[in-house]
């Protein structure tokens, strides 16, 4: 029997879908595999426990960048968590009408701003006053994280069922207490998950750090001193002419990838064990 036109069309579109999928997946796999193959060599204890060595010697690590990233991300969270949380809370529970619409648009615009702009802003506000510092970098990443935290908080609170809110109100509890103790409590694990994903989002940011924390090889002693960060080290070492540095850049990329992966998988697992309702 001759294949019908219908089954031919079906086969054609199936083949096309598989082809499109391959186009998408091959570069992704290529990136991941290259990072693993090239990065695994130097992903050792020395990488994460020692600062860089002199240029000509082999070995050395990126402890300075790990400490810098920790500092910068910590400052970013300190800025973005409270601000983003309350903006999200306001949007989910109190904002109505035109102003809410305006605020949501503003959040979307903020989320769409190129991250280098946040860096330039941090430069003019902080670097000009205090110099290149972990604080300036954290400030820039904080601005980038705010819309993510706000949105995920709003979504988490939006998922609280009406029955739960009604139950709260029916106990004669004021609105702000229902919001803070019932709604936020109910959505707690999703809000925390949103925080962590925002952290994973900004930890790999490079551009705004270029003009705020400067880089360098010293472990930052406080938030006002220049610092380095894992993505920045990747950028600087990858552009260098030295083979040894290239290897370290690959390993730093692998390390960063693992950190982001662990955060993402951790969030999934956390939500799963918390999914009692």
């Amino acid at each position, binding site marked *: 029997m001759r294949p019908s036109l219908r089954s031919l069309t079906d086969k054609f579109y199936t083949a096309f879908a598989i082809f499109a999928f391959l186009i998408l997946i091959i570069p992704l796999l290529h990136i991941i595999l290259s990072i693993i193959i090239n990065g695994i060599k130097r992903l050792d204890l020395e990488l994460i426990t020692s600062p860089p060595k002199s240029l000509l010697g082999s070995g050395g690590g990126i402890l300075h960048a790990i400490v810098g990233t920790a500092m910068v991300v910590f400052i970013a969270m300190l800025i973005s968590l409270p601000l983003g949380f309350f903006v999200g809370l306001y949007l989910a529970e109190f904002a109505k009408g035109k102003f809410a619409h305006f605020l949501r648009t503003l959040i979307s615009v903020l989320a769409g701003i190129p991250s280098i702009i946040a860096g330039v802003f941090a430069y003019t506000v902080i670097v000009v006053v205090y110099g290149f510092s972990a604080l300036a970098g954290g400030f820039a990443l904080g601005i980038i994280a705010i819309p993510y935290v706000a949105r995920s908080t709003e979504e988490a609170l939006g998922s609280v069922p009406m029955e739960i809110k009604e139950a709260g*109100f029916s106990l*004669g*509890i004021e609105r702000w207490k229902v919001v803070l103790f019932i709604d936020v409590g109910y959505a707690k694990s999703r809000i925390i998950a949103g925080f962590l994903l925002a952290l994973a989002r900004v930890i790999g940011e490079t551009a705004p750090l270029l003009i705020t924390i400067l880089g360098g090889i010293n472990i930052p002693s406080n938030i006002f001193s220049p610092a380095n960060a894992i993505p920045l080290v990747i950028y600087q070492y990858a552009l260098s002419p030295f083979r040894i540095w290239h290897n370290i850049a690959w390993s730093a990329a692998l390390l960063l990838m693992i950190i982001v992966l662990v955060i993402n998988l951790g969030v999934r697992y956390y939500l799963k064990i918390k999914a009692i309702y």
Partner: protein
Amino acid sequence: MVNIKVQVEGLSVWYRDKQILRDICILIPEKKITAVMGPSGCGKTTFLKSLNRLIEIHEGFKVYGKVLLDGKNIYDPDVDPMDIRARIGMVFQKPNPFPHLSIYDNVVVGLKLRGITDKKYLDRIVRETLEKVGLWDEVKDRLRSSAAKLSGGQQQRLCIARALALNPEVLLLDEPTSALDPLAAAKIENLLVDLKKEYTIIIVTHNIQQAARISDYAAFLYMGRLIEFGETKDIFTNPKNELTEKYVEGKIG
């Protein structure tokens, strides 16, 4: 002669431009079970939520008329809706304990958030109310574990305990057994008959048999109007209105 606990006078409720309740007048006797029956969409739930001003947390509703609790209109401007909701407790159709709180905290969350922190008092209330709803023996060893782990029937009894913890005068129940299996439903029914010694109970149900079993007074609501109200035995054996008769015979609904 029975005391009147709640007196509803000319209650009309609008949702945007649609009238949900039409000029309802009803006298709810104290420490009795009053059942509000009617087909889906007749306004039963809206009626119930108008009695503790819970309706006001939803947008788009307008309430006209009076609801007198011990002779005082709860919609008067000098009345705090929070106090009304504490005095008139409510239990919902779907068991809705707070899943992020422990069994203990579910019972006392209302008290705690209303500013009562005396641990001894809270402990006592937890024990008393859980005993009252027949849950104490089942959960006394795991008061600190999550309320979400209880069965549906247990959750609903916990919700009743949560409402009772505030020591209300009136208890509103919105089809409290419709999401439960028959055994769990029977437990709740028996519980309500027990509770009427202390509380005025208003229960919305579309289960005619349930109304016949447990209520002392029954109201029949149809398309936003109160068609008939009286002692349950009269409503079921000798209804005055043709619609009521059809409804209790199961011909409409």
